[in-house]
């Protein structure tokens, strides 16, 4: 056994610089944080978009909005069963029924997978929120090319 005095292996990490660094990071991130996350719903105007692609006939869904929230879907240039070619979805409490719309679009997509275009035809009384909700519903169902027709 050695008689030499053992050197202590304990050491201390100076934590103060870590705290300084983390505090600075927190201050910077809090000051530069964007709390309201603004996104965008991209659409092409129905009339202009169609004119540009006059040569190609893509399966397209025309969606007419009624003031009471009813939706009328008219599918063109697509191979879908006759009962799905044109049908209506009743609204609920004056707003479009997005749940039924999602189911209907899923059925349409299973019949015609190339159906990615929807052109929304609002009325003058259609509420902006409902139009955006409709677009959101279509995007959720995989219909990504959206258009809004002017009155």
């Amino acid at each position: 056994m050695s008689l030499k005095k053992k050197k202590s292996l304990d050491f201390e990490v100076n934590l103060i610089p870590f705290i300084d660094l983390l505090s600075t990071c927190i201050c910077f991130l809090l000051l530069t944080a964007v709390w309201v996350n603004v996104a965008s719903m991209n659409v092409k105007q129905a009339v202009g978009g169609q004119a540009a692609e006059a040569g190609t006939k893509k399966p397209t869904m025309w969606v007419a909005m009624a003031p009471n929230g009813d939706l009328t879907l008219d599918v063109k240039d697509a191979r879908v069963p006759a009962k799905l070619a044109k049908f209506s979805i009743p609204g609920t409490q004056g707003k479009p029924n997005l749940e039924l719309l999602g189911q209907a679009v899923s059925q349409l997509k299973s019949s015609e997978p190339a159906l990615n275009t929807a052109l929304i035809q609002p009325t003058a009384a259609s509420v902006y929120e409902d139009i955006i909700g409709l677009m959101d519903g279509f995007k959720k169902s995989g219909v990504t090319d959206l258009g809004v027709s002017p009155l």
Partner: protein
Amino acid sequence: MGIVNQGVIKTSAIGSVIGESSILAPKSERHKREVHAELLLTALIDAFSILVIFLLMSFSSAGDLIVVGKGIELPKAAMGDQLDRQPVVKVEGGKLFVEDKQVQEANLVQALLDLRKKFQETRPGEEFPGIITIQGDRRLKYEQLNSIVLASSQAGFSDIKFAVISSN
């Protein structure tokens, strides 16, 4: 003095201003009581690290691209795309604003054409993207937005981005 010499607190001791020279209990007379008040810095660092990670995850490098008007409550959407800096047309209190400058409905097409002209002057040779951002209150009727949609089409802005609040 004991707490200063011990452990981590050696470098971060919060010593009393009075210390050992209190006149209420002079050093010579009082009964010295050892006070161990070590700060648990590890827990503090844990909390700070969690905060930093949370803030980094919610950090957006895009920043505030548009300033939402006072009376405007944007609609919510879960499938919104990332917003880019494009010309903004805003409907606020029934009035139309192009890049925060109020315009009459009749002059909207001209205001948008001016924007287009300005783009072509500042970036010669670059293809005009024809993208516009529309900002409006969620309760607006479409008839109020229709004039913007039509004017955008006439001025060559074929791609419209409706500003929404991301709900996911």
